[in-house]
């Protein structure tokens, strides 16, 4: 056990973990949370998947590391800023995230890329075997509870992408 890592473990150590990240009072920043909730409604409600854990977290910062620890596959769902059109949905694998520190990146302080780099430097053996990031390009980040129409209409695509990664062969 890596005792320096943040946040408590979830009850069971599932083999796949979906983590929705966002700030629910910051407009499109909540896209990751909303996409995971939609996936739960559309795909997860009637299916028993004991090896799958879902977490929704606001501003986890480096605490994200504790959620990755001991999990085989992690699907991170987050708002991103990748200089594309608002509502564009991107799928990145772990190695593609290396270039994701400047000019583009997750929207959350200690971004996904930085946190993964920190994890690889400090706890390489405890990191997941594979990490996917489903990024939804954010548009409106003003304070408030609602998503922009572009991001709202992109949620089904993001939810579908989550399901594809979960059920891939």
């Amino acid at each position, binding site marked *: 056990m890596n005792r320096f890592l943040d946040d408590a473990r979830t009850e069971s150590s599932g083999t796949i973990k979906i983590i929705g990240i966002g700030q629910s009072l910051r407009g499109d920043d909540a896209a990751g949370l909303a996409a995971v909730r939609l996936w739960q409604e559309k795909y997860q409600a009637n299916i028993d998947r004991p090896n799958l854990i879902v977490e929704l977290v606001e*501003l986890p910062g480096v605490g994200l590391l504790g959620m990755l620890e001991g999990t085989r596959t992690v699907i991170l769902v987050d708002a991103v800023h990748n200089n594309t059109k608002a509502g564009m949905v991107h799928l990145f694998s772990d190695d593609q995230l290396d270039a994701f520190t400047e000019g583009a990146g997750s929207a959350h*302080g200690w971004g996904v890329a930085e946190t993964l780099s920190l994890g690889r430097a400090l706890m390489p053996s405890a990191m997941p075997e594979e990490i996917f990031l489903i990024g939804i390009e954010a548009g409106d980040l003003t304070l408030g509870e609602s998503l922009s129409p572009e991001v709202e209409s992109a949620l089904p695509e993001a939810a579908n992408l989550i399901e594809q990664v979960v059920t891939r062969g």
Partner: protein
Amino acid sequence: MNQDIHIPALARVEGEGALTIRLKDGAINEILLNIYEPPRFFEGFLHGRYFQDVPDITARICGICPVAYQMSSVQALEAALQVTISPEVRLLRQLLYCAEYIESHALHIYLLQAPDLVNHESALTLAVEAPDLVKQGLRLKKIGNDLLKAIGGRSVHPVNTCVGGFYRWPAEQAIHGLVPELEWARQASIETVRWAATLNYPDFEQEYEFVALNRIEEYAIYDGDILSSKGKRISPQEFEKNYIETHVERSNALHSHTVDDRTYFVGPLARFNLNYKKLRPMAKEAAREIGLKAPILNPYKGLLARAVELVHTCDLAIELANLYQPHGPSHVEFSVQPGEGCGVSEAPRGLLYHRYVVDEQGLIRFAKITPPTAQNFAQMEADLWALAPTAVKQPQEEASLSFEHLLRSYDPCISCSTHFLKLKIETG
């Protein structure tokens, strides 16, 4: 350096901010520090909400210091509704606050400011060269978050605090079980103080007016009177008459000054300088061992004050955790009545003031939140002006780093709502 500096997003500060420094004929012409400050949004967002929802909503202002927002808001609402909490609740709130100090100070010391002092671009590069150091910081932070979760139910945004007390008492074993880790944390904090004393701090001292909470019997964090290093002591109710916020056109943040228009400085340096004698003996001994005495007038050495406070809060947390024995109701029952009240506590970054007006239905009719970073804002600008003449003699990149490091030493929580920590220096 002969070009303007523009830093559109400051790295390694909690939130968003931008800094522009304009030169004219080789001299500083203008310094613009812009801060995007969400507490103003929350003041409007809270309007019309039920009072009991306020602690959980304000906790979401910041992922690093949610407890501070809860503690100032519940105290303000308890004053408004004339609710008196039990001594047991006060002790548990103090323990919850210790948790936040541990996680927040560990984060700032090891991951945010230390890289500047050891010439690293970030904690990532530091982690490659000195993994054990960064691991120590992360383990300290985790212990704070674990304690926060044990009391508050969640490790990032706690949800157990309510007006009148706590929704439920945490399990006794959950709190007592953390004592061994807290003992490790206390020892690690003492080592942190020794290590922090070996770092090279820039030579920069200014005359400041420090403002912090003060209590006769303890190092004030949860509550107290408001004391200034100029000697003025006021009650929380007098805060707005003595510390004035004004709107500055270039920023959506309000700037604070004393009523006679002086800048002032809140945060760990203010607490250490004003309340040094009230530190727990172990923390005082750690400070004495490295020759650290009040007053510290170098803002970069806020890191040392934080390290000493880590020892203090770990030691206090151990005592409070050992004493913890839940009995009686976890919150008091009361009837809703219209009223107005204010509350003030010491967030890790400094004094945090809230005031609310509640109507007869318990709905919020007015909310005012004065966060520590807004109070330090004018002082940060004054320090940038003081630093500028020497900084601009350096090459562009080094000058830019000097300004950033100064701002980071304040541990500004300039929005805590994200974002895009890209650093870009515009030329021309």
